[in-house]
């Protein structure tokens, strides 16, 4: 029939309105409080949920279209990687350690973020927020799956990739990331948004993904570049969601400011501790390095973070409480943690090595005020010790762990890089230890939450393992002599070099 229809294309703003707001409805036979029972108790006051808007104005139909395109691009490269022996095109097999740490500690975090966003998408009443959280929940599970899928190709050839789920749950160095996400998932929906949406995605995610994926590009790993950039293309939207949510909370009611500020202080510090793992990947694990951890911090921490907090100052927000401490610690954290990983390498499902002379020269150039003074002497001593004893340098003394971040308490006192930072609190007659003022403050604010922490080292001393290191290795899916220890004597090194030599030989 000749019905006259308005054929005008909807504007982006109108389309966004139709696909979000207009899909919502007012409940009639239950109260709003019954339908959304979790939005009051944290103390955040919201007066008008419609004021929240996604600045990209992405609607679900477009979302599927663009995500499908990203997946097509991703799988084209993953297929090519598998078909062309991509696992032999990396600089050398040391690079694999960075991938293993990523798979064991970070990819499970993507899955945790998926669960978290699925939950808060249900718990927030605002329709715009619900749609954005739904998209992010789907993004995050996509990231977990594409990362696992991309790295499964390496699992066919190399050690240490086989038990990432168990490593996530049971091994010790991953618990910094696991506890970070568990803490966020055990928080209310608004705190979750500040934890993951704002502090992690906005303030810290660039420090994880951009240098790591550039690192993959420098080291010939197309599969990782691709999953990284494919995931990262979603991060821009996540960062924007995080920033919009914080602005929304602050604009809705002035009473929200102190609550939000306390969450920023907490989650910035928790994030810095998670990123200490990333700092070791950047400074030590990439055979061909992109930039130092310090340089990445200057660009994505200082420059970007300062711009952000200057922007948020109009709401009364200041930089996170631990900011100055973090700035000082940046020149030390990768060295302190890597020296720890090296001496506890019997318990890592990745390989480590003493930096070569050339690598040490690079480190002293990148860390002119700290490396030669504090860290080169330790590496040199370890090297000497190994040469003299003919055995790898291991520290079978199990470390004290921080009750909050769960890392070994190996970071030093602010102002004195030669002295371990000792902090403790007593709560209900029980003593708890921390790596820093930041972690102690977090505990002291909510002790009931952190006294429940399952800490891997004390856990090993309890039933059923009671200190049995070999039993512990079985339990964490760590094969002694294959997955752990020094790179120089590893199967990974041996096999990589053998297979690579076969690639250019007809013998």
């Amino acid at each position, binding site marked *: 029939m000749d019905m006259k229809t308005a054929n005008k294309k909807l504007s982006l703003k109108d389309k966004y309105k139709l696909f979000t707001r207009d899909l919502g409805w007012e409940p009639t036979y239950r109260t709003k409080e019954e339908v959304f029972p979790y939005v009051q108790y944290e103390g955040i006051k919201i007066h008008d949920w419609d004021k929240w808007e996604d600045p990209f104005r992405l609607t679900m139909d477009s979302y599927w279209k663009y995500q499908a395109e990203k997946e097509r691009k991703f799988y084209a490269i993953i297929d090519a990687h598998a078909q062309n022996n991509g696992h032999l095109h990396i600089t050398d097999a040391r690079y694999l350690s960075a991938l293993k740490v990523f798979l064991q500690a970070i990819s499970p975090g993507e899955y945790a973020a998926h669960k978290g966003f699925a939950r808060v998408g249900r718990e927030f009443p605002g329709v715009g927020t619900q749609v954005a959280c739904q998209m992010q929940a789907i993004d995050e599970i996509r990231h977990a799956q594409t990362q696992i899928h991309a790295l499964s190709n390496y699992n066919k050839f190399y050690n240490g990739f086989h038990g990432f789920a168990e490593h996530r749950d049971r091994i010790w160095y991953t618990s910094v990331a696991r506890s970070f996400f568990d803490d966020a998932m055990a928080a209310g929906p608004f705190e979750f948004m500040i934890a993951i949406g704002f502090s992690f995605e906005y303030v810290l995610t660039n420090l994880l993904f951009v240098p790591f994926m550039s690192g993959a590009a420098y080291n010939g790993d197309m599969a990782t570049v691709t999953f990284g950039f494919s995931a*990262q293309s979603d991060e821009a939207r996540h960062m924007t969601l995080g920033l919009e949510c914080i602005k929304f909370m602050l604009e809705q009611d002035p009473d929200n400011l102190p609550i939000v500020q306390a969450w920023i202080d907490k989650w910035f510090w928790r994030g810095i501790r998670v990123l200490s793992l990333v700092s070791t990947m950047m400074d030590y694990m990439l055979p061909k390095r992109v930039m130092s951890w310090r340089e990445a911090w200057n660009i994505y921490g200082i420059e970007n973070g300062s711009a952000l907090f200057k922007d948020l100052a109009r709401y009364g927000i200041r930089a996170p409480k631990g900011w100055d401490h973090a700035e000082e610690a940046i020149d030390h954290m990768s060295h302190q943690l890597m020296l720890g990983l090296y001496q506890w390498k019997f318990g890592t499902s990745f390989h480590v090595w003493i930096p070569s002379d050339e690598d040490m020269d690079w480190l002293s150039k990148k860390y002119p005020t700290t490396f030669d003074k504090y860290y080169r002497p330790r590496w040199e001593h370890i090297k000497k010790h190994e040469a003299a004893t003919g055995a790898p340098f291991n520290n079978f003394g199990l470390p004290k762990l921080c009750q909050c971040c769960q890392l070994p308490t190996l970071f030093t006192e602010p102002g004195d890089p030669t002295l371990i930072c000792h902090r403790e609190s007593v709560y209900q007659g029980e003593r708890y230890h921390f790596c820093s003022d930041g972690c102690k403050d977090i505990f002291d604010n909510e002790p009931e939450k952190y006294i429940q922490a399952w800490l891997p080292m004390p856990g090993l001393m309890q039933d059923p393992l009671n200190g049995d290191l070999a039993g512990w290795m079985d339990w964490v899916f760590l094969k002694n002599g294959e997955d752990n220890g020094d790179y120089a004597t590893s199967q990974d090194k041996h096999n990589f070099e053998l297979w690579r030599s076969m690639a250019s030989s007809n013998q």
Partner: protein
Amino acid sequence: MSTVFIALQANEETRPIIEAIELDNPQAVVNREPAMVKINAPGRLVIRKDTIEEQLGRSYDLQELQINLITLSGNVDEDEDTLTLTWNE
């Protein structure tokens, strides 16, 4: 003034987009890194659909940027014609 930035994957699709951004933002600095192009600008960066279409020689939906976007910094505002990044000073 604080720096806003946008980073795009370095590929055939983004080459004309980056050219368009350079045309519209003479103050922008383009950093070409492995697999990635990061464009910094003081305080404000505008991406225009029209300019991209001229460079690309076809019609372009600004939301297609999502496919090749790596990261950005600044407050975002997007409608069908422009995507703007700004910091409030």
